[in-house]
């Protein structure tokens, strides 16, 4: 996945308009980074990688970049 695709995926998960997010954005600044978005991210990781995203990993995500990095592995 390119960085643009990852950001687009996250915008889709967070129900944001295309082009809203940039890599340096803090997730906590978005009210859309809510419990439902976190469940959607868990679902996406399971679908793409077949693994379960842990609550600790989710807590460690501070910026959009952190999530993009996770999808690198």
């Amino acid at each position, binding site marked *: 996945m390119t960085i643009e695709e990852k950001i687009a995926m996250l915008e889709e998960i967070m129900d944001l308009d295309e082009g809203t997010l940039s890599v340096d954005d803090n997730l906590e600044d978005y009210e859309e980074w809510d419990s439902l978005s976190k*469940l959607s991210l868990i679902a996406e990781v399971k679908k793409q990688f077949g693994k379960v995203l842990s609550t600790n990993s989710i807590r460690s995500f501070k910026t959009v970049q952190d999530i993009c990095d996770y999808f690198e592995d």
Partner: protein
Amino acid sequence: MFGVFNNISIEGIQTVVPSRIVNNLDFADRIGERRCKKQIRLTGIKERHVCAPGQTSADLAYAACSKLMKNLRWEPDSVDVLVFATQNPLFIIPSTAFFLQKRLHLSQDCVVFDVNLGCSAATAGIQTVSSLLQGARPGGRGLLVVSDPTYYTEETNPDELADQMLFGAAGSAVALEKTEASISPIYFKNKSDGNRYRAIFRAPGGKFIMDGEGVFQFAINDVANDIADFRGEIGISTDDVDYYSFHQAQALLLSTLDDACGVESEKELRSLEKYGNTNGSSPLVTLCVHEQELKKNETANILMCGFGVGLSWCSIYTTIKTSGIYPLSYCDDIYPWREEN
């Protein structure tokens, strides 16, 4: 525990819900329109049936049992076992099952008690009643009834309200008979994990607490793996299964679960859109909601799985005579048990 019963058949399944419907969109002013629409989209839950004030788990349970007994022409004195699975008993002591025994006029020879299980109650309850019937006479009869109420909420805290918007009220009963001519074995795989007892939790007098992320991870990992293992242990492939009926937790979870254990989405029946997450009864509610489709064939190979509080998860696989699956009906009765001496 994995096992099989070769001498038990499911004779009937009945479901009742209260007639009052609440539309989840009506909560937009309390949790915000954006969040409300997102929740409905991801959970798939648009409407739910809720109890009238004062209506109890036992009102729904009684209605489900009495309708099922009437449909099957089961006389009260022919019932050997009654198990009531609920998280909302009427009393601390005794089991609410005794109150149901009285209302249903079951005999003193009947074994009755409550089981405190949540969203695994339909499947774990079928295993429990099937086990109890092993000691019964040939033709012995058992009733499992699963019921939890939900009420219209005045809650204003958005996080708590979002949880409450998941749940709908229902009561379902299953009639099981000990028989030598069972049309199919009943396979089960029943598992528990006390290490996660706090994942869904309520202390006496306290609030309902759910670790949504933890439960989601549990479902798409532990439950999904066990459904796949269960098919392997029985020796069937997903082609052998006509329908899946899973606990109606929410739509995103079910779709992810389907993906994770190779379930074709068109075989996975749902009832959550109009009835919500109906707790322990939900796999049974779903079968009753889809009874017309199921009745296109005389029998159906059904894999049910309930999972939740405990943590507890249990799968059942069997062939069901579809003539015994009755259409969903309404119950608005309230029995004034507080006025009894």
